[in-house]
């Protein structure tokens, strides 16, 4: 936990000194970042519910609440203040919701990558001790169920660039997880996207540009289409 605290953003960015005393404080976006207009989610995004699914969910909610209808409302627990929520709320949506202010360039990302990432992921993201980050399939095909020659990488498989930011910020680098300030995470995200041919070497990323990056595999994903019953799918 000491690692997290010492490597964390300056106190002014954490919103309050109370939050800074918290156990696992991570860089916190001020409310301003949350108010950025949310880019449209693409209509085919798996997990957006259609009318029938919304109806089914409403029915499930009703059934669930009926199951516990005989129980009183208990009122246990405490109200969570906005500061309390902000201290832990680090998730980034595919629409960019939650992205903090700041920016980072491909160039700076390359420097950081050499210091922090190269050991596990290879000089150009080709993977070494751990998984490969870079690589595209010719023609951006998606042959993974039938062809073992191609590797699953950010460029060949990941559907959303926001995921890269979210994951690096929460879990990387391995020796000091969650220690990178937003500018560094933007820079590393930019460099990894550049390794995959998705950004130019002079480019930068911020909260507005990152969610607008269209990943080659974005439309390859379908929500679970198994329909129950005897069918093997």
């Amino acid at each position: 936990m000491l690692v997290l605290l010492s490597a964390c953003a300056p106190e002014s960015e954490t919103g309050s000194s109370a939050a800074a005393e918290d156990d696992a404080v991570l860089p916190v976006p001020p409310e301003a970042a949350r108010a950025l207009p949310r880019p449209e989610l693409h209509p085919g995004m798996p997990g957006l519910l259609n009318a029938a699914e919304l109806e089914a969910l409403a029915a499930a909610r009703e059934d669930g609440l009926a199951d516990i209808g005989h129980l009183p409302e208990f009122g246990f627990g405490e109200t969570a203040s906005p500061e309390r929520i902000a201290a832990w709320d680090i998730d980034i949506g595919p629409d960019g919701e939650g992205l903090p202010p700041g920016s980072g360039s491909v160039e700076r990302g390359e420097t950081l990558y050499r210091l922090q990432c190269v050991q596990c992921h290879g000089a150009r993201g080709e993977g070494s001790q751990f998984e490969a980050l870079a690589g595209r399939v010719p023609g951006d095909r998606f042959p993974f169920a039938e062809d073992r020659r191609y590797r699953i990488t950010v460029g060949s498989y990941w559907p959303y660039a926001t995921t890269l930011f979210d994951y690096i910020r929460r879990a990387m680098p391995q020796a000091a997880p969650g220690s990178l300030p937003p500018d560094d995470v933007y820079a590393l995200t930019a460099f990894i996207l550049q390794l995959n041919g998705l950004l130019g070497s002079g480019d930068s990323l911020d909260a507005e540009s990152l969610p607008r990056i269209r990943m080659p595999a974005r439309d390859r994903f379908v929500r679970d289409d198994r329909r129950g019953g005897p069918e093997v799918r």
Partner: protein
Amino acid sequence: MANNRENGGLPSRRDVLAGVVGTAAVGAGAVAGAQQADTPKPRPRAPEDPTKMQGLVPRPLGERSAFETPRRLVRVLEPSSSSRTPLQYLQGIVTPADLHFERHHGGIPNIDPERYELLIHGMVERPQTFTLADLKRFPAESKLRFLECSGNGGTAFQNQGRYPRMSPQEMDGLTSTSEWTGVPLKLLFREVGARPEATWFLAEGMDAAVMTRSVPMEKAWDDAIVAYAQNGEPLRPEQGYPVRLFLPGWEGNASVKWLRRLDLSDRPFMTREETSKYTDPLPGGKARMFSFGMDAKSLITFPTFPERLGGPGWWEVRGIAWTGRGRITRVEISTDGGRNWEDAELQEPVLPKCHVRFRKLWNWDGRGATLMSRATDETGYVQPTRDALLAARGSYTRYHYNQIRSWRVESDGQVFFAG
């Protein structure tokens, strides 16, 4: 990493090695990176006639007979690691907590239960935190349910016939059954006033991966549990101590351990695990996402490698079956490689989304035989052959490997995994 020991976090490599001393023979290279140490320990001693001396006095904490040394099979690829349940060692349906499989993405965190809090926020009327004491004060519920990693069985599926020396533990040891106790998630969601427009929630862990998965709200209104106990005692650290999410019948990864936060939203979050990892590539250039449900599966656990049958005559074929869709209704056994099938007996209790023990007496004539098991569940789903699964998903699909497994019994009694 130097302070991991102080934190009680990741075990050192030495711990890992020590943990597998005594592991039963394992197939050559079938589990890449599996640490093996074949230093035979001297056999424990027992008196010639135990009735001629007073026995031991009671102890505050029990332990296994010195003659019993089951071990999980550990695979460490830091920061990602796993250990597998010795399924061939177990009887009945409950997995002892210290043999429950593990799968971690950032090691096992050390969490003080007195400082533990669960935060629920997002599309709710009243964002709240709950202490462990708060959670335990709610009406509790206990369920016997299986938990299986959706990558379980992948090595056997993708390397057909290459590893005859695979035990059930190596092949399918990422499944276990426990009695899970906790608070129904719907009760907590009612407390915080979950808004009707919330369609997904994010579950976040308190490990070094701060691991996250998006879960459909429908599961919360159905049977999701915020669990704090396993087989009657607090969760083991490697199972999420002090609190984990438990989603009955769904792939293990979504039952987020060391649960610290639930964020309700009207769209999924597209985390690393649910995009780049736990998705199933399909023929035709697509991949299935949010494939939570575990289809029906069965596995013979006796006789299997490395067992050697002592001779012809009566043997009881035993195994486990399970389905994420409800109850297992039937398990059939073939002793001739799938030409003829006969019903096995299902041992009570036959619970939904839980391992079920099956048994079938077999009079072995001493000739070579191929044993198979095939499960059917209450939705009419029949465990598919490998060919049927290949046709539906492609040769190199990832996750959800529930094809029929077979075991070859040679005329000398030696048993091998046969694909």
